[in-house]
């Protein structure tokens, strides 16, 4: 991958207290309701938010996604740091059907209370990727690019 580091930082302010945002990120019952893009459900959602805890999520594409319907996109990982209401660090390996590693990243989420709101900073750093990931990313991109473009337009407006 040469010297070009693949990383991404997203900052958001949620109109909810930090305690609730933290719960939404650490309680698998709440997490499974928002994890994964539109049209995707999470039939498997193991999310053990303690240091060393395991992540095992399988996203399932629904009818809305047309030709992708029925496809499964698994993701595995391990929690590296869990500082209550303050910071989550976990590794994430997005896997293909036969569980070969594709793209490996480290995700850091920081939470800051701002009165009754919460500022969240998400940092994703790709630590390793294989050729397979390139193909998968391209496939995902083709499938989702339309709705993603629409979303991007909406976000640009607001």
């Amino acid at each position, binding site marked *: *991958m*040469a010297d*070009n*580091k*693949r*990383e*991404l930082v*997203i900052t*958001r302010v*949620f*109109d*909810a207290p930090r305690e*609730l*945002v933290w*719960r*939404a990120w650490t309680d698998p019952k*709440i997490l499974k*309701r*928002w*994890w*994964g*893009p*539109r049209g995707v459900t999470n039939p498997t959602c193991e999310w053990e938010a303690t240091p060393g805890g395991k992540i095992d999520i399988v996203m399932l594409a629904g009818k809305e996604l047309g030709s992708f319907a029925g496809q499964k996109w698994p993701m595995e990982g391990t929690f590296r740091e869990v500082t209550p209401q303050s910071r989550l660090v976990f590794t994430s390996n997005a896997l293909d059907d036969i569980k070969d590693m594709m793209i490996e990243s480290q995700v850091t989420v920081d939470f800051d209370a701002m009165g009754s709101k919460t500022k969240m900073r*998400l940092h*994703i750093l*790709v630590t390793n990727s294989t050729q397979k990931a*390139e*193909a998968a*990313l*391209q496939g*995902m*991109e*083709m499938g*989702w*690019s339309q*709705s*993603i*473009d629409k*979303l*991007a337009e909406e*976000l640009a407006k607001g």
Partner: protein
Amino acid sequence: MDVFYALAEPSRRKIIELLANSGRLTATEICGSFKITPQAISQHLKVLLEARVLSFDRQAQRRIYRINPDSMLEVERWTRHMESLWNERLDALDRVLEEEKRRAGNKKGNGNGRQ
């Protein structure tokens, strides 16, 4: 060869756009989307290869062109892709937080009080 020089020409930008959308294409497939001559396309591909914006794999006699995975362009493409994915996910989180807030509000309203 400078990346900015390579990107300055509109046809070359269109070639990159095609490859960004399609992943991998042969020169013939790229030519199909243009009105200019195959010679001109071949010249543009050469410039893009020298600037390391594109790379190619060989398949029999043919070259299959793609955006060079090590180029800044590819990194930017990945970043935009991941950003959209996460923004969609965080929009969903926003909705879930609203639901949870309402749920907590109802509990209070029913006289269950705080924990």
